[in-house]
């Protein structure tokens, strides 16, 4: 993990209030697993860094893609940055999906809204490993949807929108049927809870979110209760990806 000023080489809107940002720098060379994130200092006006998942990485070229949604002042300021600007990035942070350990005959990926991004690099690498992938991508509406075509390159895609303007109308939990042996989910905690209840018994991995301070494991801002003696995990370094049996979703 290092701190680096990365250069913005692409930056474009891809859906309502959603942007694609491509960064160049040596942090990209260090990415180990899908599901890792970077911790971004948007500008001097913000005291805390913002965690954003790595949606795609090209280690050789030293490039990484982030997909982010405007959620407040920090992401809004980020959206004003231009190609050629540099930006203060800490990363790669966290432990991602443990691809090496995974032995799957058919993987189910479940992403809700801005939880979709880390699954993209995962889908790609599962596909490269020869694992069949089905992706369930949930959005509020058609305007918010993104990367549905891109996911199709790596397997089946089931799109769900709350208002039915694209794909199935409803929630991601409505369309989880199939003969999967492992699932991978990222999205709001309420969705993760629903998914893990529904798929109880199946091997599963959850990517979690929490407000962060340091992003490197030192401040204990980002804890989630765990089922063992230690009693907790740090999302920023023990996670953000956990075995579904490891953590307690409150």
């Amino acid at each position, binding site marked *: *993990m*290092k*701190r680096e000023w990365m250069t913005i080489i692409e930056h474009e809107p891809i859906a309502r209030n959603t942007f694609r940002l491509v960064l160049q720098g040596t942090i990209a060379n260090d990415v180990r697993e899908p599901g890792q994130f970077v911790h971004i*200092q948007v500008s001097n006006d*913000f*005291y*805390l*860094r913002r965690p954003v998942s790595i949606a795609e990485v090209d280690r050789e070229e030293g490039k990484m893609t982030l997909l982010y949604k405007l959620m407040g002042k920090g992401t809004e300021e980020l959206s004003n940055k231009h190609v050629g600007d540099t930006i203060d990035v*800490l990363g790669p942070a966290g432990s991602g999906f443990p691809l090496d350990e995974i032995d799957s005959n058919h993987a189910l990926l479940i992403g809700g809204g801005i939880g979709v991004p880390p699954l993209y690099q995962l889908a790609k690498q599962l596909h490269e490993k020869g694992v069949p992938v089905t992706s369930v991508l949930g959005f509020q509406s058609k305007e918010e949807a993104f990367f549905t075509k891109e996911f199709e390159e790596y397997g089946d895609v089931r799109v769900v929108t709350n208002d039915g303007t694209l794909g199935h109308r409803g929630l991601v939990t409505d369309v989880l049927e199939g003969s999967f042996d492992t699932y991978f989910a990222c999205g709001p905690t309420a969705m993760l809870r629903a998914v893990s209840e529904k798929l109880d018994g199946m091997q599963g991995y959850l990517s979690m979110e*929490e*407000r*962060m*301070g*340091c*992003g*490197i*494991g*030192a*401040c*204990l*801002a*980002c*804890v*989630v*209760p765990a089922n063992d003696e230690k*009693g*907790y995990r740090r999302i920023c*370094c023990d996670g953000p990806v956990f075995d579904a049996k490891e953590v307690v979703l*409150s």
Partner: protein
Amino acid sequence: MMLPGLELKNPIMPASGCFGFGKEFAPFYDLSELGAVIMKAATGEQRFGNGTPRVAESASGMLNAIGLQNPGVDAIIEHEIPFLREYDVPVIANVAGSTVEEYVEVARKISRFVDALELNISCPNVKEGGVQFGTDPALAKHVTEAVVQVSQVPVYVKLSPNVTDIVQLAKAVEEAGASGLSMINTLTGMRIDPKTRKPIIANQVGGLSGAAIKPVAVRMVYQVYEAVDIPIIGMGGIETVDDVIEFLLAGASAVAIGSANFKNPLVCKEIIEELPQALRSYGFTSVEDVIGGAHRETATTGVLRT
């Protein structure tokens, strides 16, 4: 530089709770470069702390309500201190508790393994214990005396800024036998999110740290320096080498850097490297030369301006 119990290569150390037990920063630089390390708070038993969210952002600062999460004094002695002891750096243990008995137990156990204690009577983020020891001079005196008595190393008492009269507190703990002071802990604050209509932090209130509180910290160090004879470790909003000099001029003998480690994990190392040049550029010959300087300086403003 010598402070009670501490032989410092330089006056810069990471503040308690902002550096864990050092492990997470070791990949960024050699911890032996630090003046000292102040560890995360230790309590008698393992604590799980407050609910999340535990941090919120504010203008030039942040709120936190971690709630003294830590593995307990025994686990810290067994699993954390040995790692830090591999570095050539003095180690300070931050001692917390809910009762005088707990403070005493933690201090007695941990003081054999470290160079100094920082007695945390100022944590605003736990429901019981902690902060009332830091706001009532009689209680502060009492717990300090008890801890000094059992500690094998010098005790620095960490003061809370959430008080009407910081000088009164400082004098009380000096009388009680503190070897030094550490100040300031965080100011109690709150943020409310207009979208959810609720406090952002699960604990509702949290401790405000960062550049925002620096003027309050500098003022308190300045006032306390005039009233006590024990050294002060100054902290609160330090982000740059100029901030370090400001605290030294106010009367701090050394400084600690907290939340700025989150913005830049290399901040302590960078400031340590910049300090000699900065001292020269302002006409100082040593760190000692700066300490308390604002209390002595009588030249008119014009003379030193260029």
